[in-house]
């Protein structure tokens, strides 16, 4: 009896898993299908003609998918550098030091994510015009960094908070300076969390569309912008191919994220 019941449960769970997998991967499979559909119209349930015509179109010499991909990655790397340069000290202050109005400061970093970015970016674009950095990589990087800072600061704060205080004390006791203790003990221990925060920022930057749209166009065309133009222009094949290119880094990082984000750090995020 008991065996039959547990068998039933296992098969029910498996069935749920199959449905889950379908809902998860169906949309992605759909993308792959569209990317090779040369002709596809009603009432056909599958493409009428398959082919790689649109792949050739995307990667054609005058096409800009590869250039956009390069721009996107380059911007993301610079964004990570800036965000980490700002968030490591800030995260240490929030995670380790006594800070007046700590909750308020945490909220301040959340604000760029909390306010609908559209309204902010228009005004940012106006300010950038005056500074002459509209339509430059630098302008886009700054916008992305401000946007991603909440992830890097919050996760860095959690990472620092998770570092065992006794280890630092021990280092201080044997005569290490505060700075030396930070660089030889605290920072290496917090490094996995900080790397994870860098990954978050990297992907936020790759993902970012609205800010680039207002601040980067027309000189800086990232992959999401390319995708948007193709999608709104109704070219689902080109949009799907661009989307597939964007998927590669996203999925790679997803597969490796738990290497860096340990459970004890995760438990402290935002607290």
């Amino acid at each position, binding site marked *: 009896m008991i065996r039959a019941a547990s068998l039933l449960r296992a098969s029910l769970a498996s069935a749920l898993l199959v449905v889950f997998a379908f809902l998860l991967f169906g949309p992605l499979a759909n993308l792959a299908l569209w990317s090779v559909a040369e002709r596809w119209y009603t009432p056909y349930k599958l493409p009428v003609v398959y082919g790689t015509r649109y792949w050739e179109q995307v990667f054609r010499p005058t096409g800009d998918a590869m250039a956009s991909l390069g721009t996107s990655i380059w911007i993301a790397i610079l964004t990570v550098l800036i965000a980490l340069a700002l968030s490591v000290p800030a995260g240490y202050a929030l995670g380790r030091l006594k800070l007046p109005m700590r909750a308020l400061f945490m909220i301040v970093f959340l604000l760029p994510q909390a306010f609908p970015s559209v309204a902010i970016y228009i005004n940012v674009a106006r300010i950038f015009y005056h500074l002459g950095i509209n339509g*430059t990589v630098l302008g886009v990087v700054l916008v992305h960094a401000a946007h991603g800072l909440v992830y890097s600061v919050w996760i860095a704060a959690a990472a620092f908070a998770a570092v065992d205080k006794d280890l630092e004390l021990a280092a201080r006791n044997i005569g290490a300076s505060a700075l030396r203790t930070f660089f030889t003990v605290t920072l290496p221990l917090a490094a996995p969390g900080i790397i994870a925060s860098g990954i978050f920022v990297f992907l936020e930057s790759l993902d970012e569309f609205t800010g680039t749209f207002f601040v980067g166009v027309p000189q800086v065309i990232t992959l999401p912008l390319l995708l948007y133009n193709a999608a709104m222009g109704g*070219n689902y094949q080109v949009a799907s191919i661009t989307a597939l290119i964007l998927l590669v880094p996203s999925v790679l990082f997803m597969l490796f994220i738990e290497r860096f984000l340990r459970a004890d750090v995760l438990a402290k995020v935002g607290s």
Partner: protein
Amino acid sequence: MRILTIACSLAALTAASPVYAQTLNVASAGDQNMVDYVKDYLGPLFEKSHPGVKVVSVGTGPGDAGSQKIYEKLDAQKGAGASDFDVVVIHQKAAGTMVKEGLLAKYTDKVDTAKLVSSETAKNALGSDVSGYVMPMFQSQTALAYNADMLKSPPNNFVELKEWVNKNPKQFGYNGIKGGMSGVAFVAGWVYAFGGDAGKLIAGPYDAAEKARWDKAFAELKDFNKNVVITPGNAGTLDMLNRGEIAMGPVWVDMFYSWQADGKLPPNMKLKLAAPGMPGQPMYYAVPEKSAQQKLASEFIALATSPQVQADGIVKKFNWYPGIDAKNLEGKLDKAAWDKLFTDITPTDLAANAKPFPIAPYFNDILEGYEKKVAN
């Protein structure tokens, strides 16, 4: 901080790329096909005749929104030394505003092909005098696309359309007014049909009291909307037609033909221009006042409006109606390519039912009235 400095200098490095002697920046408002037109067809053609020149084609997005973006860019760079764009491709509404605010340069007297254009749209953009500042790139038209398998006799006018939608709920789709111009054109057509005097809306003069007369039309449109599908964008309507999810919807004629040629629409789709008509519009080539490449820009436009390019590029490749007068294309184009433009919508239909958009103030009133009384 050192990282920041390095990052900044690296960023500055990437921003500067003086490989070509001259760069001509062409910004197009509109769907991706227009950006591709410059990138894949017109740009390389111009580079061939102007060695050392690099044409950079950028798109600022579909619909009036794309033009507004160009307007904002030029407006913000009013005080700057040179604008980012040398040639802009813009919609009618924005063209009027830009001319009024002095953002565009008068250039057509420097372009020989200007003589080939006699249409009213080259002088008047929704009530604004733009003569001298613009050349039409092409003319396009909205119409109702329908699936001829599901629907043998399409409605001849908006009253019949209303009845048909009542009998066939959720079989008609359009994209409202936020997702592109084909939905906007449909709403304008609705107001032409049920809101009184279309001629007055098109020719002006503006009378602020006029909009009060559209209340009934908007109330009816709100009822009508209960039985239609609201699609995401110009392309969304075509996509739903393609997937058999709706049987009829307003589309741009050029996009319709391009999609059909690409195999993205069933072969049995047809077009119908219902009375009293729906709007069409040209796209304009214009040169920003602050462009550092004025001469090169007018040479580019001269090429773009030459009869051969209009025949091969505009008509044959991209299914638009030519921007210059049709008689100049004689002999440049085989008859089949020309006739293809008029398969479903004959020149007679066009003459009777192809309307311009209303003049700008009425246009804005219609859009706002729609948001207030129909969408909300």
